[in-house]
């Protein structure tokens, strides 16, 4: 799903990532005990906790020893050059990687108190808790109403009033209600690109997930549609926890509370977004943010 970046990633010697055990780690990783400047973030309980996650595609290691926590009702953005594993990590969070053959995952991911890779975990139930919005908007070839109602329908909900109520609430939540309320029966594929993406967000909202995972949700949208989705993210944060993968540094700066920077399958640095962008703790982060590579 990643767009290959033709530019070679420079690997100056001083940028070689030290092993996690080396001295860099304590300063660059958010640890639960680390002092945090934003009191709201400080008080927020942990929503997602990723512990020593390794992921292999066959022999190739795509993620190495990732440790990360995401607080409730915050926005976490994953940044990094193409192929750095940020989308792969995102897809670990609702086990979408299970669909790919030959994937091996080590480590733990906790959603609330559930270890999502525990053998007894129900993948179907997990995915209801972690909604996903994709890079390319992918509404079903059904009506707008049926798109939003889909998640409830597959849960066996067929009560018309419940569905109507949920569709209206979700479309309002996604800021699309005013635009489509008179044509709910029309095909979703007649909507514009930005509307389609917001419809996909509404579809994810309808099942009331705890976490919304967004995989470069604005990469195919024009600036105005992008701005609307960004506004939406800031609003949704009040109710949901959001993890967003983005290529757009400004977007990460605008919407996220925390940022995690990945390079070559490793988490290089994570912290409060304002700190990351004003005072990065690692040379590579600084180089990437300032556009010197990536």
């Amino acid at each position, binding site marked *: 799903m990643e767009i290959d970046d033709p530019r070679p990633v420079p690997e100056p010697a001083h940028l070689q990532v030290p092993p996690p055990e080396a001295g860099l780690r304590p300063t660059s990783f958010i640890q639960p005990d680390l002092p945090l400047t934003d009191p709201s973030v400080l008080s927020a309980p942990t929503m997602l906790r990723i512990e020593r996650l390794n992921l292999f595609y066959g022999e190739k290691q795509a993620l190495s020893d990732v440790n990360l926590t995401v607080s409730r009702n915050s926005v976490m953005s994953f940044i990094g050059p193409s192929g750095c594993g940020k989308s792969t990590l995102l897809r670990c969070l609702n086990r979408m990687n299970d*669909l790919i053959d030959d994937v091996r995952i080590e480590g733990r991911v906790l959603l609330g108190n559930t270890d999502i890779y525990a053998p007894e975990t129900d993948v*179907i139930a997990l995915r209801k808790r972690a909604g996903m919005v994709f890079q390319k908007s992918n509404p079903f070839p059904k009506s707008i109403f049926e798109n939003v109602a889909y998640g409830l329908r597959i849960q066996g909900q067929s009560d018309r009033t419940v569905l109507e109520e949920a569709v209206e609430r979700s479309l309002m939540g996604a800021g699309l209600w005013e635009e489509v309320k008179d044509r709910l029966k029309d095909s979703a594929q007649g909507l514009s690109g930005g509307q389609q993406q917001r419809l996909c967000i509404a579809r994810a909202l309808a099942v009331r997930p705890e976490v919304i995972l967004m995989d470069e949700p604005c990469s195919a949208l024009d600036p105005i549609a992008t701005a609307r989705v960004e506004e939406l993210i800031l609003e949704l944060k009040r109710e949901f926890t959001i993890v967003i993968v983005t290529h757009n540094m400004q977007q990460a700066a605008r919407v996220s509370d925390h940022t995690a920077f990945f390079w070559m399958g490793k988490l290089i640095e994570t912290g409060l977004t304002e700190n990351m962008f004003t005072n990065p703790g690692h040379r590579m982060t600084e180089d990437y943010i300032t556009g010197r590579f990536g």
Partner: protein
Amino acid sequence: MSRLAERFRQGGVFVWFSGTLLAFCLAMILSLVGFIVAKGMGFFWPSQLVQVQTPEGPVLGEITGHEPARGEETEKVQFRVGNRDVYGQDFRWVPSAGMGVPEYPADALLIERLEYGPFIGRIASLSHDGHLVSTGPVALAEAMTRLQEANRLRRRIQSIEKGQVGDLNRRIEKLRLSRKKVEAAGDQGALQALDAKAAALQTTYDQLQTSLEQTRTEAKAWTLSLQTVDGQFKEWPLGSVVRMIPANAMSPLEKLGVYLSRLWEFVADDPRESNTEGGIFPAIFGTVMMVLVMSVLVVPLGVITALYLREYAKQGWLVRAVRVAVNNLAGVPSIVFGVFGLGFFVYGLGGTIDQLFFADSLPTPTYGTGGILWASLTLSLLTVPVVVVATEEALGSVPRNQREASLAMGATKWQTLWKVVLPSATPGILTGLILAIARGAGEVAPLMLTGVVKLAPAMPLDGTFPFFHLDRKFMHLGFHIYDVGFQSPNSEAAKPMVFMASLLLLLVVVILNLFALNLRRKLRERLGGSTF
């Protein structure tokens, strides 16, 4: 660079080449259809009756052919003289050398009859109950008016025979079967009750027969005395006349009336005279019904197969082998499928069903003989590869991101397939169905072994419970063409029927396809910009 080389480089030559070939193909198809239309559609137009003098006597008939002089053979003209009961044959070749001047007598008459093909000649007189009523031209005029009444009577007799009598027969047969059961059980009281019922039915039956006999006598009361051009006489009941056409005395408008009435009879009536006359409605109906039953059977069969092959089966050499085998199934000669259908469906499945559920009526088979169900099943086996291939393609072309969207919502794989993938793939599946219909509707060989007959006594769908009679034998346009054209004793007379039946078969296939195409278009619109 020379100009030719430049044109080769630009590809212009190949555009012309492929365009020419396309035009050639179109021309072939158009000429095929045009040929069939021209040969078939003219058949119903009443042609002039020509009378000529020959050394052997006068000849009266329609001119149907012409053979130029070749070597020792002189130039000859073919006449359709009719009167098979008098002359023994319908056609006669007359050497044009000794032929006098052709005349077009206004009182010459072509009479379509229920038996022996047409009579061509004149009406000498009309009688009622053996008493002479009128002669000459007056008799013709009166016969024309009486004909409508006679035709009405005939239709009434037919409807009584088919409807009420058939119904009674079925009830009597049912009663006989239940009597057999009761007899085996030894219940005397029930036996008596059944016998009483049977007696009552028999009485109704006898009454019906009496009234039928009366109507028949009434229909036979009026008789025509017909005279051939060479002076032979023939008595013919007016009740057995379908149409009287004084072609030479008719205006084009009247001829058009005859044309339309004949065309309607052809499309909407039952066949007569071992299929060489009358209509082919049962064959049209049988073809359409067989194709519909086949479609109903082949779609689930093909879609489920493709779904498993594509979505569930572990892709490996076994699946590849199965896929190759399925594709090769499309290349198996259809008669092989017919033999399989006869052996497996008719004798195997049908025989077992008979023993389990219809043991009462054995040894008369119910399902253990050819029938529309077995024919449709055989054809659905024949066409299933097309549906499987098309469905696999369609499933593969459903965008991956839609499956992911559904799975990410917490849908199971089955829910994703059922609610997202299959609806998106439906237009592609219908493409497969369209191809299957095109293949299946024209197939004849396997049907001959599994249920098609020359003349089916009853339709596979009618007003008697349970309405669908999938065990019944049926008629089929393709087989009709073969039968009329090549198995009939009078194939020369039936030649135009062959072309008309071919035309109708083409039309049926086109209409069925248009129906499926329309369905696909509607679905695509509903899906909006679907990819397949």
